[in-house]
């Protein structure tokens, strides 16, 4: 298992459970390194004193805060002196309902795992898991990790304690300055839009969504390695607002009920093909049994598919 990012104790009333914190998010991105174009050697970021123009070692670096133009140097010891008393403790302050916490507040997910083999620790951890899964509530607490204080929401996920760090209220911007459109839609339009959403309703199944970007980037790297030509797809044009809102809603609802692509303009026509992404077209071509679909351009795919209809 990965390395613990933090260890300390979870404090629930007077019960303290020694725990370790592990990330619950995996980084699966492809990361690039900076290279010197000429010799393909790795670029290193090094620190230089802007005054003396000489390299500075990490031990000689200090922190400074720009207080209205005045530079104020602060040492690690000084920062440590203002850390909250219970630095190594996650203190449960309250229990709240999950639906009262807007997802906007959630930041990074972690797991809390009991630290050590002691029976008392295991038992206290299980007690918390049991109690919290039964109550269905979220515990709120705070803790300090790497010189920052976090507000955290604790729940049970997959039989373990899950901790999600949260933003503080002043880190969420007010919505008041966001333009929210103009005219109020009519009753019929709203009813039709609600019916459409219900028609397209489905359960949240995260496994259904793959990271296509990651896959495409993998292909780009592979193509480059094999010296194949890399072509960027033509980006889709932004569609203009529908001239007749009610007609657009009815048309979409009809499409959804018929199991057609919801953006189909005409009955049985092929006009919609142009609007699909290359991926979606490739997918269709595969279903239709069109050969060599992965090598075709978007235009070729549209042509091949429209011939099938």
């Amino acid at each position: 298992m990965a390395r613990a990012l933090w260890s300390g104790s979870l404090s629930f009333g007077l019960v303290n459970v020694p725990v370790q914190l592990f990330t619950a998010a995996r980084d699966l991105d492809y990361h690039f390194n900076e290279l010197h174009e000429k010799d393909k050697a790795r670029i290193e970021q090094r620190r230089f004193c802007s005054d003396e123009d000489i390299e500075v070692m990490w031990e000689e670096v200090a922190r400074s805060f720009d207080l209205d133009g005045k530079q104020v140097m602060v040492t690690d010891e000084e920062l440590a002196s203002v850390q909250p008393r219970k630095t190594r403790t996650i203190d449960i302050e309250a229990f709240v309902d999950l639906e009262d916490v807007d997802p906007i507040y959630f930041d990074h997910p972690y797991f809390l795992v009991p630290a050590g083999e002691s029976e008392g620790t295991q038992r206290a951890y299980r007690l918390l898991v049991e109690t919290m899964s039964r109550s269905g509530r979220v515990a709120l607490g705070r803790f300090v990790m790497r010189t920052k204080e976090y507000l955290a929401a604790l729940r049970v996920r997959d039989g373990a304690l899950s901790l999600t760090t949260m933003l503080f209220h002043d880190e969420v911007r007010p919505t008041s300055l966001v333009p929210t459109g103009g005219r109020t839609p009519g009753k019929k339009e709203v009813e039709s839009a609600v019916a459409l959403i219900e028609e397209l309703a489905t359960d949240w199944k995260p496994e259904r969504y793959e990271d296509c970007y990651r896959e495409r980037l993998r292909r780009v790297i592979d193509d480059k390695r094999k010296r194949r030509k890399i072509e960027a797809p033509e980006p889709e044009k932004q569609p203009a607002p529908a001239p007749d809102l009610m007609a657009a809603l009815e048309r979409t609802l009809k499409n959804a009920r018929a199991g057609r692509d919801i953006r189909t303009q005409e009955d049985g026509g092929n006009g919609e093909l142009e609007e699909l992404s290359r991926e979606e077209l490739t997918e269709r071509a595969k279903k239709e049994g069109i050969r060599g679909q992965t090598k075709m351009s978007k235009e070729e795919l549209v042509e091949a598919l429209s011939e099938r209809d």
Partner: protein
Amino acid sequence: MARRSIWNGTITFGLVNVPIKLYSATESKTVHFNEVHAKDEARIEHRRICSKEGKEVPYEQVVKGYEVEPDRYVVLEKDEIKAAAGDRGKVVHLIEFVGAGEIDPVFYERTYYVGSRDDAKPYRLLHEALRRTGRAGVGRFTFHDREYLVAVRALDDVLVLHTLRFHDEVVSGDDLEIDAGGKKPSKREVEMADKLVETLYEHFDPESYEDTYREAVLDLIKRKAKGEEIDLTEQEEPDQGDDLAAALEASL
């Protein structure tokens, strides 16, 4: 204060097209420090140095390489990396709608506010329909040449767009090695713990949680600026209780 949008595009649900702008919904308030040279308090600059030549490299001569095996890189041009962005451009198609409350909190990544670009009806229509159904529209969104999975839902009077983690980016509890053996907590302990949860229950009010550490750091900086001496004694750790039932009882 005029708010600057960070993205312009169109959200569609079926044949209804909603011209929109995106705004950041969150901003970190963490206290950020600059690196300085302790000796002379001069700012530290990060310079790019070629590891082979030991010389500074201007940014124009820097390329991006993906390491395929130790010290072997596939160099990609910016346009080639861009090719992976896909062809959605500036359009977010909401293709299906899930119960907004069904999405587990671990999936949420970043949030943006969705603003309307015109005074027409579609924005309010989408907002009203999402509000009434309590659903979130799922689609894909391309931002800075990278594609994200997103959920769009109604919050108060606005639409919000959340980027979501993909399922394989979320660690499952089954991947943890938690020992399930040993003695179970007793009935009495469970009952007392339940009671404690009830005692501490409250309605969530985000404003009752302030970032006290941030305030303490800012206060420290101000005191330091005035030339005050800082007391360096660190605070103590709490004691570890070992009698579970007694500790619970005392908490109640």
